[in-house]
Each structure stands twice: as C-alpha cells, then as structure tokens.
C-alpha cells in the first residue's frame, strides 16, 4: 500500500492524535505448506470514542489484523513482518512483551467469537473476573469482587452476587458472552476489539448483545473495532467501515457513505449478496462467484480481479493502491469526515452499484493474461459476467497453457505479455 497518511488529521488545528494508528501492517504465517500472506500492508486510524467496523469474508485477514495489534498471533508461525501499530503514543510492534501484557486488558480488551470456549472451564466466573481486575489494579480482593458484581449487573446478568460463583458451563451462550463483555470492560479499556461477537449466538440473542456492546462503549467513550462478515451487524453499530479482502483494505468510508455509495466491486457484491428487509421490489440476490485467492500465492494484480465483473486488463497485473474516490481530494484517515477511499482501477458507477453489475455498453471483464490462466481463474472468468463465447474459447485451453508458458507467451494476442512474469507452475 503506497498511500501515505498524514501524521495527524490535517483538518483540525492541534488535533488529537488518533488512539490507534496502524501503518503498513504486514503479517505472515510461515507454515509447512508455505508462507501465508495474511495481512499485506494495512493502514488505518481510529479516534477516541470512534467505532470502526472491519468487514470481509473468512480468511481476509480481519481477525489476524487485530490479533497482531495486541500481539496475540499464534507463535511461532505468525509474525508481524512490517509496519507499525501506534496505540496511545506507543508502538505496540516493538514494545516488550511484558509491557504489551500491561496494555492487554487494561487499555485494549477483546471479545471473542465463541463464548462457549472463551472462558476457562475449571475456574468460576468470580475467580476469572477478579484475576483480571487484580492483575492490573492493585486493590483488595473484596473491592475487586464488588466491582465484578457491579459489572455483571451492568451487562444484565440477573442475581450477579449468586451467579459470580458459577462455572462457565452453567451459563448459556448469550450469558457467557455477557460475562466476556463484563470482563473485557472491567478495567474501562480505551479500545475494545470485538471479533465476531455474535456469530456463535442465537439470532434473538445477537441483537441484545450488540445493543449491550454499543451502549456500554458509548457510555464509557471506549473506541470499538467490530470485526464481522455481516454488513447488517456493522450498519447500526459503527461510525466507519473498512472492507478487507485478501489481507488488503479495499474500501474505507464512513458507514453512511459506504452504504449510500459503495464504490468497490467487492463491496457492491457484498451488499447485493445480502438480503435486505427494505428491499423495494425483491431485487435478486447476486452472489459473488469464485473463491478468495490462495493466501500462500497471491496474484500480482488486484486480488479480487478473478471474481470481478468490472475488471480491466490492468487489474490482472497491477494491484491498485487505496486512494480517494474523488481523485486528488485530501485524505482524512479517521473521524466523521474521513475520506472515502477505494483500491480499484475501474470502480462501478453509482448506477452500476445500485444494480450490482456493470451496465456500460461494450464492457467485458478482461480475460486473464495467458500466463496467469489457471483452473480457478478460468472458472471464475466463466462464472462472473455471464458466459460469453470469447471466454469459452479461452478457458478450455487453460490446462495446456499451464505447461507451456513461454510458447504461449509469444502467441498471446493481448498487449500485456510483459506482465505475466509470475509463473503459474508454482500455483496449485
């Protein structure tokens, strides 16, 4: 990502430093099957009290980004290989483990996806809550206990005095998530990271838990990063949204702006693949065909190109940086005036975004350059944008091409033969 962010929001004189300032974050997992490029230069900021949604499908790097922020990547495979995470004036990437431990829980807290497994089964809720409180605040046990009771009451657990003595398995899923929220907010952190906090819960409980998180963070002025794959969840909960794909932020805007004017084909696809209650005349749902790329072997071009109906030839070879939708406008990275930015060579127009597919005359999604054609992309090429004769001619040849790149290279009939420099032999 080549976008450079200003050191501070330029629109406010002597403005507050953002609470969280992530720059060019690079996370890799070294596994036996190869290196997984989980997060590929992600930059974003978060103001105090601001609520940010992080949206994307499974494996797009949204959870990894946040585990990296509080340095809880699984060791030894996961590593931060670049970038910085400034939180409240400190760089968390270079901080000592013991200092990071101080920050965890006290300044940054996290709520996890599955409340059924996020509490220690052999300790009572009381022991776990008091332990967390006492770890950061030197206070007598009785005071910590009183605080725990208060917190449980705050998150809506009936008879908190009595329930404190219970073990996690004696709570329902929704109640456990409430306990997790109580523990996360025990020390009034500055930042709460909620990683799909409602995915494992009943639909009826989901709304309650979201409402609770929303209310408590607003009351305490806690900043929130809400990770989810459900755009419906972030809509009412956040001020701003980052859409992630294959370890990149591909669109960022304030929540209202993103829903009004989605500008990246992937965001458009997400919105059109989601059923809406207020749908006027039952527009058909448009699925996003294909699969996300193999994170061990990312393409050189835009990672979304194989699935994109708007793609141009350049999309296969050049990964676009995150830039303002309105070219040349100044970049505000956070806050209510944040600039709407996308990483796209050929963004859908407002009208196309409404319909969910390209509608300009004569547009055909660019076929992949010969050297990059593999089974996956050829199927994706067939699937999106409808089946067209020119695709049918290209796709069956894909299997032959794999083995004869140099020969095909000369015969390639399009003008991008200089760009297919990464061989397909190493894929798959």
């Amino acid at each position: 990502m080549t976008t450079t962010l200003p050191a501070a929001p330029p629109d406010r004189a002597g403005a507050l430093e953002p609470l969280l300032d992530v720059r060019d974050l690079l996370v890799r997992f070294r596994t036996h099957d190869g290196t997984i490029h989980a997060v590929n230069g992600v930059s974003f900021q978060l103001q105090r009290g601001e609520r940010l949604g992080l949206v994307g499908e499974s494996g797009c790097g949204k959870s990894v980004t946040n585990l990296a922020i509080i340095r809880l990547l699984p060791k030894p495979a996961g590593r931060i290989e670049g970038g910085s995470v400034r939180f409240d004036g400190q760089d968390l990437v270079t901080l000592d483990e013991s200092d990071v431990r101080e920050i965890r829980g006290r300044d940054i807290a996290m709520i996890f996806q599955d409340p059924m497994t996020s509490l220690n089964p052999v300790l009572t809720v009381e022991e776990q809550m008091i332990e967390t409180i006492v770890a950061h605040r030197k206070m007598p046990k009785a005071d910590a206990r009183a605080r725990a009771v208060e917190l449980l009451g705050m998150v809506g657990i009936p008879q908190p005095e009595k329930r404190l003595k219970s073990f996690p398995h004696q709570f329902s899923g929704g109640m456990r998530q409430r306990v997790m929220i109580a523990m996360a907010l025990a020390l009034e952190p500055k930042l709460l990271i909620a990683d799909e906090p409602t995915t494992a819960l009943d639909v009826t409980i989901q709304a309650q838990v979201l409402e609770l998180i929303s209310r408590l963070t607003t009351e305490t002025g806690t900043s929130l990063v809400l990770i989810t794959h459900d755009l419906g969840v972030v809509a009412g909960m956040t001020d701003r949204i980052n859409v992630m794909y294959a370890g990149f932020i591909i669109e960022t805007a304030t929540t209202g702006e993103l829903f009004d004017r989605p500008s990246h084909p992937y965001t458009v696809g997400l919105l059109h693949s989601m059923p809406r209650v207020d749908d006027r005349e039952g527009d058909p749902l448009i699925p996003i065909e294909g699969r996300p790329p193999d994170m061990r072997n990312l393409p050189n071009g835009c990672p979304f190109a194989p699935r994109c109906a708007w793609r141009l030839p350049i999309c296969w070879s050049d990964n676009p940086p995150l830039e303002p939708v309105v070219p040349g406008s100044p970049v505000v990275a956070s806050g209510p005036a944040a600039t709407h930015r996308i990483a796209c060579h050929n963004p859908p127009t407002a009208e196309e975004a409404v319909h969910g597919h390209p509608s300009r005359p004569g547009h055909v999604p660019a076929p992949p350059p010969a050297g990059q054609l593999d089974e996956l992309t050829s199927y994706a090429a067939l699937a999106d944008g409808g089946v067209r004769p020119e695709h049918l001619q290209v796709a069956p040849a894909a299997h032959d091409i794999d083995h004869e790149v140099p020969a095909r290279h000369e015969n390639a009939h399009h003008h991008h033969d200089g760009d297919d420099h990464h061989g397909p032999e190493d894929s798959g």
Partner: protein
Amino acid sequence: MTAPAATVVPVAERRASRGLWSDAASRLLRNKPAMLGVVFIAIFVGSAVLAPVIAPYGPLEGELTNRLQPPSPAHVMGTDLQGRDQFTRILYGAQISLQVGVVAVLMALVMGALIGALAGGLGGRVDAVLMRSTDVFLAIPGLLLAIGIIAWLDRGLWQLMLAIAVTYAPVFARLLRGSLLALRESDYVIAARSVGAGGGRLLTRHMLPNALTPLIVQATLVLATAIIDIAGLGFLGLGPADPRTPEWGTMLTDARRFLQTAPWLVFFPAAAIVVSAIGFNLLGDGLRESLDPRLKR
C-alpha cells in the same frame, strides 16, 4: 455445542451444582462400572492396609508338614510349598503391589509432568531436546526397559519402583506436553492473554489445571498396568530382593510347578492381580468420563 444455548441455564438452576469437582464426583457415583472398580480397589487397598489385622498367620510362618494343603477352613486359600498360609501371603502381597505401584506411578507422574511442563511451557529447543529424549525411552518396550534397569541396579523394592517409574514417565511427559500445546492455542487461554494474563500465571492458573484431568485419568490407568508389571517382573525373578517376600508374581513363579497338583496356588495370586488391575482400569475409565466438564448427563 450446537444445541440452543438458552436451554442450559435452567439445568444449572434446577440442580444447584456446588462446583466442578463435586459435579464430577456425582457423575462418577452414577457410573456403575466405575463403582465396581472402586469396590475392587477397596478390597485391594483394604487387604493391604488391614493385612496385619485380618491375616490369620504371619506371612513367613509355615510348617513344612503342612505344605500344599488345599483350601480348608483353617487355610481358606490353601498352603504353599513351605506350608505358609496362602490367604495371609495374598493379603501381604497386596501391600507390596500397592506400595510399589503407587510410589512408582507417583514418581513417574512427577518426572513426566516436570518434563512435559518444561517442554510444553517453554517450547522451542528445550521442547525438541526433551521430547526426542523421551522418544528414545518410549522406543524401548516397557518391560524390557524395566528389566534392563533392574539388571543394572540389582533387585530390590526401590529398584523396582524406579524401573517402573522410568518406564512410564515418558507417557506422562508426552500427555502433559500435548495438552499444554493444545491449550496454548485454546480460546480461553488466548482470551486470558487478551486481558493481560501471562507467563507463570497463565501456566499455573489456566493451563495446568485443565491439563491435569487427563493426567489423573492416565495415572489411574497406568497404576493398573504397573500392578501387572510388578507381578511380571516378580514372575521373572526380578521382584523384591528377598525371595521370601510375599509378592504376587513371585508367588506365581513358585506355584507354577504345581499347576496340576495344587492349582489353588496359581489361581488365587492370579485372581488378586486381575481384580486389582481391573479395579484401577474401571475407575480410570469412569474418571475419564466424569472429569470432562463438557460431558453432561
């Protein structure tokens, strides 16, 4: 875990549970095979503890004129080649088996847990060195390793304990290390780390207690095998240094020649070994089921 979570709460409220351990205990009490195991173990331990009280004779006293008597009211399990009362010797034999078995398994548990905790807790190079070393021990058949150790250290009760302990320590080491590795990536350990837990507290409060139950179960099961091993080593003449010691395996060796003329001499020690081993096996299986808090009935 897929069941609607909301149904769990009323269960907890209906049956006021007093805690994890008492819940486990009540589950264990309802487990019939485990209770049969407990009865067997009670007989075994009772025999060992009460041997001096209930034994009608001394373990070493016998009249040669009284030898190879079949079971009778005076000698319920008959007498052996030296005219010693077999019932008395079985009772005292329980003492040897219990003592050697329990001490050996405890030693194995401590050694293994230490190795496993170091390997699983520290990881990296320490882990590699410790685990490859335990692999070497695991590669040697257990009884052979024990025989080797006794051959090296000479016969005797302590040597017997040590031999069995060394044989089983790698089992515990691997088990604990495996649990710790799995726990390190478990949701609640990551959750605990996310609120600032770390280092020693993480290991002692969150990881070890959760890794303990498989160790307890395994120790119970190993105790059963250890009792058989003790008898096996005794049978091979590698038991206690004093050949007169009433040890079940040694008794079998002596009785072997009279299998046809005095079968009770083989039957009763063999039955004692079987009953005590099965007892620990049944209890171990029952513990495995009842100590898992996720298994609710």
